[in-house]
Every structure is written in C-alpha cells, then in structure tokens.
C-alpha cells in the first residue's frame, strides 16, 4: 500500500513532471492565459496520460520491442483524438475546445505522456500504471493552473472571467499575456519548489 501511495504522490510533488523533470513545458506556455482553458487542458492531459498508460500496460507483454515507440504513439494518438472529439460534441465544452484549438491535438507531442509509458507503464501492472499516469497528469495540471492563475489575474485582471483586480482599477499588464511570461512564472515556481525541497538541489 505504501508503494501505491508513493506512485500517486511522487509525480505530484517530488517528481513533478514540469518542475522537476521539466517535461511538457511547451503546452504549459500556450494554454495558461486563462484559468478555464488551463483547467480543461489539465483534465484532458490527465485523462490521456492515465488511459494511455493503462492500455500500454495491458498490452506491454505483447508489444514487439522494435516498434514499441510506434505502438505507444498510436495509443496516445487514439486517446488524444477521442478527448478532442468528445470535447467538440458537448455543448458545454465546445467553446473551450474552440479556444484551446490546436493545443488539445498537441497533447500527443507532450513528452510527459510517452515518457511515463516508456519509464513506467511498460514495466508495471495495469493498475499502478493507470495511477501513475493520472498522478502525472494531475502534477502537470497543478502547475498549469498555478501559472494560469497568476497570468489571468495580472494579465487580464480577472479569474475564470470574473473581474477581480480589474474591478479595483488595475491596469492590465500586456506582458503577462505573452508566452515568455509563462516561462518566467514557471522559473519562479521551480525556484520555490527547490527551496522547499532540499533533496532536489544539486550538491
């Protein structure tokens, strides 16, 4: 049971895919302008990593070693397209899918998804693989939401589209909206994370 707990908690804190492994930062720059988009992206990535890890783990003993990357890619692509299709089909999520546009499709290029399949799912049983995938997605999503929180608050003065700072007469900072600012915020998060967790610092 302790091992299971570790599988779930490690990707969220000590082995966070973004702040520690620095995987999947490309999309975290693109979709963090607004909280709503970041939240949907976080959920989509969590579902994709979880299900792809599960499926790859289920078929791990049958995959021919020489084409294993291709098989992983096909499985991940399947999950990504399914998520995209479902988002498009529901009235409530259609507008958000439209806003995230290409970035949902680009989950397939997120190094984190295939990284977890290679490193974990191919050598572990289905249930731990599913948990590992979901936990990595959540670890990724958590950072995404933090960055989006800062960017939407300082860039547009709103949270989830509701005026917060803009109601107090705050003048929006255009720089925060642009992608480089996501990188700076991400740097700050990594800095804070490393200061708190001394194990992560290089000797």
């Amino acid at each position, binding site marked *: 049971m302790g091992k299971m707990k570790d599988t779930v908690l490690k990707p969220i804190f000590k082995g966070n895919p973004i702040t520690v492994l620095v995987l999947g930062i490309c999309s975290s720059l693109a979709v963090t302008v607004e909280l709503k988009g970041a939240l949907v992206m976080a959920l989509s990535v969590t579902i994709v990593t979880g299900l792809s890890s599960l499926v790859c783990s289920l078929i791990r003993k049958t995959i*021919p*070693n020489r084409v294993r990357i291709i098989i992983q890619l096909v499985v991940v692509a399947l999950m990504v397209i399914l998520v995209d299709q479902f988002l498009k089909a529901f009235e409530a999520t259609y507008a958000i899918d439209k806003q995230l546009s290409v970035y949902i499709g680009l989950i397939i290029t997120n190094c984190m998804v295939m990284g977890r399949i290679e490193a974990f799912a191919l050598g572990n049983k289905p249930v731990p693989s599913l948990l590992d995938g979901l936990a990595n997605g959540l670890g990724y999503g958590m950072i995404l939401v933090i960055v989006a929180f800062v960017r939407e608050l300082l860039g547009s003065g709103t949270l989830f589209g509701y005026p917060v700072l803009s109601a107090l007469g705050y003048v929006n900072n255009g720089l925060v909206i642009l992608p480089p600012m996501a990188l700076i915020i991400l740097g700050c998060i990594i800095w804070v994370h490393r200061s708190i967790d001394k194990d992560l610092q290089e000797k």
Partner: protein
Amino acid sequence: MNTNNNVYTVIYTTVVCVLVAAILAFVSQKLGPAQAANEKAETISQILTAAQFGQKEHWQEIGNAETIKFFEENLAGEPVVTSTSQLKALNYRIRNGEQGIELPVYKFNNGISVVPVYGAGLWGPIWGYIAFESDLKTIAGAYFDHESETPGLGGKIKDDPSFRAKFSGKSVDFAAEKPFEILKGDAAEGRDNAIDAISGATMTSKGLSAAIIEWMNAYKPVLAATTEE
C-alpha cells in the same frame, strides 16, 4: 513467444492500427451530428452578434436550441447556414476572380442584412460577419473570429468589444477601389469608410482589412445593385 519476429511485428502493428482506426471511425460516426450542431449554433451566434441582437455571451447562456430558434424566427427568407469550411471554399473562388458566385446574405426581419468575410490573419484563417442597416451601406455591427491569432494582440479582433464597436456607424463605399479599410495611426481619422487598427497586431489588422476589401468587392454586385432598385 518471440515478439521480435518480423512476421509477428508486421501483423501486430497492422492489427493495432486497424483496431484504432475502427474505434475512431465509430466514435466519429456517433459524435458527428452533435459536433455539427455545435458548429452550426456557433456560426449562428456569430451572425446574431454581428447583427446586434445581443452579446456573444448571451447566446452561450441561452444555449444552442434557443439561439437557433431565435435565428429562424427573425430571419427573412431561407435559413441557409454557411460553415467556416464553406466560407473557405468561397474565399478561394473569390480570390480566383470567379464571376457569378452565389454569395450568402442573411436578411433579418428588422431590415438588417449580414454578410460574411474570410481571409488570412497572422497565424491562421480569420473570418467574421458584417451587418448592414437597411440602406446596405451603413454598418450596424460586426463580429470576427480567428483560428490562432495571438491572445491579447491579434485575438482582440474577437475578444475586444471596443474594436468591434468601431465598425458601427461607419459605412462601406462600394464605389471606391478599397470599400473599407483598417488603417494605422491617424490615417483613419475623419474617414467614413475606415477604422483604426489594433496596436501591436499589425499583421492581423492588415489581414482583416484585406479580407474585408476582397469580400466587399465581391459583394458589390449583390449589395450595391439592391440599393439602386
């Protein structure tokens, strides 16, 4: 079992691909109608927003069914809805200088007519709808959408209501070579058929300007002819 065998590898890969293709085809078949309905409602809500029947958020709040109902009740004539891909096809024909293309005009009961525009922004296609008063010259309102313009800069053509508001009250001069322009700086000041561009989004503004010029020229026979009657 030897999973490194060539024959095994080929058969395995083929089976996986066929299986995945079958799943995707099935899901696409099942979800297709729902997606098309969402897309249609989105287009309709853009047309209605341009025609000043309400803000874009309003249509999202009342939902797809109510939006389509409102559209059909207030439309004079046949409700033909052009999807973005159909606009793209039309744009291609307009650009090639094809004559006698059947162009869509949405005429509403209160005299407002809406026409689409389509063109290229900085990163991808941009399109939108321009609503005319009953004189078919004065602009009542406009709504624009884009695929991937920079949020906060080019994205303002969609997200910034004050940019859209600049169109209201202006008019399209069908006699001019450039019926309507989006210009930098003070160039637009005092002109009836030009508005100020978005600062920081030169390429998107230019693209939108070019799209409007191209489409208005194409619409000249349709709109200008009706005015003279």
